[in-house]
Structure formats: structure tokens, C-alpha cells
């Protein structure tokens, strides 16, 4: 499978990365090179093989349903959460207007 300029533009849009026409042109052969290279996996017979989901068998844990059980990840951290926000306002994350 290979990608053309329109496909790369579509992927970039899905990935929310703005790319110029010039960058698009440069990316098409690069991505095609990588995609052609990974195509070699087609040679491997994987019939009946279960896709790997965990490298070490492990079960997902549930924590006790207790508020602030771990103070590091509990609540009441508004200021710390907002400390690195580029445009915090009134205790919230500020974003450009999304509703007219």
C-alpha cells in the first residue's frame, strides 16, 4: 500500500498537524519508504496467532473506591493542574471561542 499527497494531507489533518504543500511533497516519499519497508510483515504466516496484548501476563487492578486514596492523584489540585496552562482563566483552561 502506498500513500499519495491527498492521503498524507488527510492523515495530517487527522493527527491535527498543519503541514505546508512543500512539507507534504517531502513527506510522501518518506512515508512510502517506511510503509514499503514494513510491508515485509506480509511474508509472515500469522494464521491462528493471537495478537499480543501484554508482554508480561498481568491483570488490571481496580483501586478501592475511596476519595483521595492516593493524595498524589486525588482531587483538590486545581492550581497545580492549571499551573502550566498556556491560558488559564477563572480556574479553567482557556480556549478560543468554539460556539458562535
Amino acid at each position, binding site marked *: *500500500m502506498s*500513500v499519495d499527497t491527498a492521503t498524507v494531507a488527510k492523515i495530517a489533518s487527522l493527527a*491535527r498537524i*498543519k503541514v505546508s504543500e512543500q512539507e507534504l511533497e517531502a513527506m510522501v516519499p518518506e512515508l512510502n519508504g517506511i510503509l514499503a519497508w514494513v510491508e515485509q510483515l506480509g511474508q509472515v504466516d500469522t494464521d491462528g496467532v493471537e495478537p*499480543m496484548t501484554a508482554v*508480561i501476563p498481568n491483570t488490571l487492578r481496580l483501586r478501592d473506591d475511596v476519595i483521595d486514596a492516593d493524595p498524589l492523584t486525588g482531587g483538590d489540585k486545581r492550581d*497545580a493542574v492549571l499551573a*502550566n496552562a498556556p491560558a488559564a482563566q477563572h480556574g479553567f483552561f482557556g480556549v478560543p471561542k468554539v460556539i458562535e
Partner: protein
Amino acid sequence: MTDITDLGVAAIRDGVVAGTFSAVEVAEAFNANVAAAQDALNAFIVATPDHAVAAAKAIDARRAAGEALGPMGGVPIGMKDLFATNGVQTTAASHILEGFVPQYESTVSQKLWDAGAGLLGKLNLDQFAMGSSNESSHFGSVVSPWRRPGSNAPLTAGGSSGGSSAAIAARLVPAATGTDTGGSIRQPAAYTGTTGIKPTYGRCSRWGVVAYASSLDQAGAMARDVTDCAIMLESMAGFDPKDATSLNLPVPDWTAALSGDLKGKKVGIPKEYRVEGMPAEIEAIWEQGIAWLKDAGAEVIEVSLPHTQYALATYYIIAPAEASSNLARYDGVRYGLRDLPDGAGLQDMYAATRADGFGAEVKRRILIGTYVLSAGFYDAYYTKAQKVRALISQDFAKAFEQVDVLLTPTAPSAAFALGESNEDPIAMYLNDVFTVPASLAGLPAMSVPAGLDAQGLPLGLQIIGRPLDEQGVLNAGLAIEGRAGFAAKPEKWW
């Protein structure tokens, strides 16, 4: 008197306990080396001399009070700038996180401070740990302290933990944290004549580590020798309920059980690692490694890992897929860079921020990842890769029915010059050919320095072990270390 900065973790810790020198003297000696090398080596993104001295003062006070100092007491270390450090900028060597100051401490770094270590600074790396040469850092490439004889051409210190490896080799730090997704601890260690171990996936908490490919990312220890790596890894590892993939197992006392006696052990030599076009010197050092392990009492057996040749392609589907998902969080809203063009809406802000904030290799991997996960292609690429990954893992499981550890070269060459391999992304990816398979299978693996090539550059050997058998890996590493007698260090030019 010995130069303090020539000492490793165990020697510094023991010297502080014995009163041979104070922890503050140690911190100041390393601080001076860090400052003197910064312009030439660019190993640090941020140096934190005050943190190092403050931690050292606390250790000296504890010693004066007759308290225990901890397994890393008085040892100042470098922290790869992928670990969140409370109040100290953490960037992942990216523009998008430039100026980001975490309000919390990663589990691994906290454990190291609890063990008595201090912070010399945040070490440079490939942007978001994506790279094998440290050339993708937003803050410039790390320059290796090693040079080819008669040449000033700057060499790579490897990647992605290249700041860590360069700093250890140049005696700017006695030890440093690294992270390894496809070889990012082992390859830089090999290129710089240093030692690095990636433990079993799940041994070290990923909480507070900037995520690249979550099913592969694993923190580990880098230092000058096997014993120092064991001491440091013991301090870093352990169960953390804040990481869903953390293993709820006790951390063994690896240091106490270190032994280079391999009598009764079986070492596997995977025949598929004899890749075409492998330089004769790599072949020779591998043969030398086999002889050393035999001398240590091990029986050496050829084994087969038939899916080895597909590991890199598998990795370059899975890692970008996970990266595209993980890096979706950088949106210009919650932290990091925001690029808001005049009159732009929310979507335009996302796209402009991410275009400005990510480097070329990061964008490349996000786009590949987005493509392989997109509707209609998911099964052909991602599911297929996860199936091949299962086969690669089964290859290892079968080999470990016959042998205790595997011995391979760490990298297919010695360090290359900066700018030499960055034209073709795939050529760069091939650096990880020997390290990626163990990452895909989540196995513990380490690189130990084995010798120098004809140009005087270090070469490393890799040991891969069974899941949770860090001890077997460290012991085989110790057997090689004792026989290689690697004492070379880069001649100081910086």
C-alpha cells in the same frame, strides 16, 4: 587523592559513609564537570547545581546525626529529561514542552531521591525519545566525549538516552537514568563504553515518565559498571499502584546476589543475529564474548529466533501507533506550547501548535502511527504487527527452554558521526536491529562495554534474559566485565 568524579555509585556512597569525602564535596566536583562540559557536549538541557548541593547537605547532616544514608546516599545523578521532576523543567527535548514545569515527581525519580541520590540536572535526549543518535533534540545534538583518533568530527553518543551516556562517559555524572523503548539505554551505552540495563517491562513505574510507546517504554539504570547498575536499578524498581502495568512483585536484592561465576549456566547464541554485512570487528567482539562466558563456566549453545528479521518492521508499526495516541495530549490547551494564529479557532490552534511544537522525526512517527491505526488499515498493519510480536515473543520463550541468557552484539557498528546517518530514516532505524526484539518481548537486557574497535571506539555486548531474571542478566554482564577489563575512557578535549 583520586579524582572524585572518576568514582562510581558504590565507591561514592561508601566514601561518604566512611567520611573519605563529604557528599557536598562530591556534588561540587560533579557540578564543576557539568558546567565545564556543557558548551562542548550539550549533554544537559538544564543543570541543577543547587539541587545537587542541597541533597548533599541533607546527606551530610544525616551522617552527622548517625543516620543511615540509603543505597544511593550522597550519589548525585543525571535524570533523563523524560522524567517529571517537581519544580524543574521537563521537556522530553521538545519545543512543545519547553518551559513545562511539573507540579509532581515521577515515581522513579522520587524513589532515587528517597534512596539518597541528588539531581545534577536534566539530560538531553532524542525528542520524545524518538531517535538513535540524539540528533532529534530541540535543544541540539549531544556530542560524544569519544572521538576518532586524529579527527575532530563530532560523534553520536547514541540515542535516545544520549545525554545520559555522554555524561557518564565524560565523568559529568557517576550514573544516570535512561529509558528504553527499542534500545534507548543499551545502544547509547554501547557507543560510549558505559553500562546500561533495561529491566523486565513493568519493573519500573512509568508514572511521571513522558510517554512514547507505552507497551514498550521502560526505565532503567546507566552507570560505569554492572554493580552500580544493580544498585541503582534496585532503588528505581518496585510496584506502583499509579501505573496500571506495574508488576506487583518484590524487588530482589540483585546487588547481594551478584556473581560472575556461570558454572551450570547455559548461554544461547541466536544465529539470526549474524546479519549480512556485519562488520568483522563486531563479529570478533561477539566471539570474544562467547569465549569469556565459557571461561566463566557457562555452556554455550546456538539457538534460533526465527522471526528476528521482522522485529524492526514490527516495532516501527507498534511504536508509532502508540506514539500517535500518546502524543495526542499535546494540544496547546492544558500545558506546553500554544500557537494561536490571529482569528484561529480551536482546530486551527491544535494544528498550528503541533506543527510548531513537534520536530520532523516526531511528526513522521505520529503520521505513520495515525495511518496504521486509521479505519481500513488497522488490521493490515497494527493487528498484523501485534501477531508478529507474539511470534517474536514465542521465539524467545522457546530459546529460554534451552538456555538461561542470550549473548549478542548491542549494535551493528560503533558510534557514527553526527549527520552521517540522518538522511534516510530507515538506515537510522537499523541501528536498533539487535535491541528491538527484546523490547518487543518485554525482556530484561543490558549492554556492557567489551572492547574498542580499530578506531579506538567502544563496542558493547548485549545480554538478554528471561522475564524477571535481571539477576541472570547482571551476572552474565559481570562475567564479561571481569574478563573484558574495559578501562578505556575518552581523552579529555572539552
